């Protein structure tokens, strides 16, 4: 018999010893149970039923005469819509970035032993979390009605450094950004505080015992560990923020929803333009979850013994599975 590596022994051929190369676990032992895996027939039934329902909904939407599909494709990449998308993204990123810095400050103040800082932080969170965002937006947008001029000087004296017209200093975009940022800071402060509280007291003691100051401890020891707890809810907040930017339509900031309503008030295609903005919001929220994954992975180091694979690594693993160990046969010549 020729020495073929994978030739099956014919009937009556002498039994051959398999010499495993590589992982022993892949070599079947006669004592191993060769069981049929548990079947899950209902999963297939439910999946099939759901597919039918989804298909029906999709077809009914597609065939609905009240929806003019060409309008959707006409406006989805419209110049004005794209500008609105960019503004929405800018508003989201800037307000989240600035509010997070403010939130860390508020959380540290809230947790400090200084009663003045503590009270100030409490008051801020109380005020900005206790009133509706919509009202705050209108307030900043129409600040000019309350104070026509904004003056920097010494209180209770006539001395003033400069004085400007409120509407010049705070145009609609700035007012919107201010409203979103200040409101978000109050919510984020509580998230950051929760994250800081999740860090073990022993970490502070260890840091202090090697001579670290409270500030150094905060930035090098406490916040990096708190991030693990902070990031998932902050991802939530970022997505909320993205959608809350649409509230700025009440003060006519030209973000994507405002633009869409302006267009639909002219062509009366309200449903189509709402579909257009919804598609953009869905797309943007999907994109925003990518940095969240990598941030979580970065701050998770040291906590798990092995880090989860990146999506790219997962795709790679499917495309190029680890080579199976080959079993060489030692046939007698």
């Amino acid at each position, binding site marked *: 018999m020729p020495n073929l590596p994978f030739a099956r022994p014919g009937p009556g051929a002498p039994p051959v010893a398999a010499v495993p190369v590589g992982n022993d676990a892949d070599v079947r032992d006669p004592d191993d149970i060769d069981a049929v895996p548990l079947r899950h027939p209902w999963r297939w039934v439910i999946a099939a039923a759901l597919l039918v329902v989804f298909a029906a909904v999709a077809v009914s939407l597609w065939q609905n005469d009240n929806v003019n599909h060409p309008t959707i494709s006409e406006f989805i990449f419209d110049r004005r819509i794209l500008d609105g998308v960019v503004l929405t993204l800018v508003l989201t990123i800037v307000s989240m970035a600035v509010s997070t810095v403010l939130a860390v400050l508020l959380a540290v103040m809230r947790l400090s032993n200084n009663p003045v800082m503590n009270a100030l932080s409490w008051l801020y969170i109380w005020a900005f979390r206790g009133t509706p965002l919509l009202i705050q937006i209108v307030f900043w947008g129409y600040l000019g009605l309350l104070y026509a001029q904004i003056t920097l000087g010494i209180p209770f004296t006539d001395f003033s450094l400069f004085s400007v017209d409120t509407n010049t200093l705070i145009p609609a975009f700035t007012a919107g950004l201010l409203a979103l940022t200040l409101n978000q800071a109050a919510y984020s402060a509580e998230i950051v505080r929760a994250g800081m509280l999740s860090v*073990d007291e*022993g*970490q502070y*003691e*260890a*840091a*202090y*015992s*090697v*001579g*670290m*100051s*409270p500030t*150094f401890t905060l930035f*090098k*020891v406490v916040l*990096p*560990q708190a991030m693990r707890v902070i990031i998932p809810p902050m991802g939530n907040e970022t997505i909320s923020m993205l959608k809350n930017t649409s509230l700025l339509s009440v003060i006519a900031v030209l973000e994507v929803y405002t633009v869409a309503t302006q267009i639909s008030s002219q062509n009366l295609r309200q449903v189509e333009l709402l579909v257009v903005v919804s598609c953009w919001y869905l797309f943007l929220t999907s994109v925003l979850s990518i940095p969240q994954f990598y941030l979580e992975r970065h*701050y998770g*180091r*040291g*906590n*798990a*013994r092995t880090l989860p694979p990146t999506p790219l690594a997962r795709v790679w693993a499917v495309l190029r599975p680890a080579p199976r160990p080959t079993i060489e046969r030692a046939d007698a010549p």
Partner: protein
Amino acid sequence: MTDTLLPPLLSARKVRKSFGGVEVLKGISLEVAAGQVMCLLGPSGSGKSTFLRCINHLERIDGGRISVDGELIGYAARHGRIFEMNRREVARQRGGIGMVFQRFNLFPHMTALENITAAPIGVRGLLKPAALARGRELLDRVGLADLAQSYPAQLSGGQQQRVAIARALAMDPKLLLFDEPTSALDPELVGDVLDVMRGLAADGMTMVVVTHEIGFARGAADEVVFMDGGVVVESGPPASVLDQPQNPRTKAFLDSVM
């Protein structure tokens, strides 16, 4: 200890401390000379750990005074008056006093080497290459040279505690405090940590060790102090306190742990 001409490195006089009306330290007075090892023994709740934490100002004392190397802890004398120190000065003082905790308290987001070098770089302003070289040297000293890049979660309890000792040593402390360093370890891991501590004692490190390891106290301590109920009940060389205790409370405690 009393025959040395140098002033004691650690001196505590009538130290008192209360938590919410309960006095846990009722006037502790003791001295440790440079290069000596003192072991604090006593039942749980006797105030040993609290006293240790007072030495590096993790707890603020209510009365008495503690000084290390001639410097009052937490207070500074200026113009004939005593002022409470600000946080920066307290941090500087703590840098000269190392502490090893029962629960290790390594920074989980840093590797073993980063744990050791964080304070020398960030607090003392040591340059990174010098700090890393010193860090590796210390890891080698505690027998973990090849685990420099491991995170604490990847290390055993005994290895974590040895990294924690190296972390404390990295600030070149005058005094090392150990708060039950082997109490959270599996029995077979205790030996490695005690070996490192014996090595430090032999090298002349001044140490105050709260422990339940009577064998370590007998072999490595210059003085053993038995505390109970917030007071020092008995103190002296290990041979006398451990083998011929005079006080009935000391006897009862030693009988229960040995």
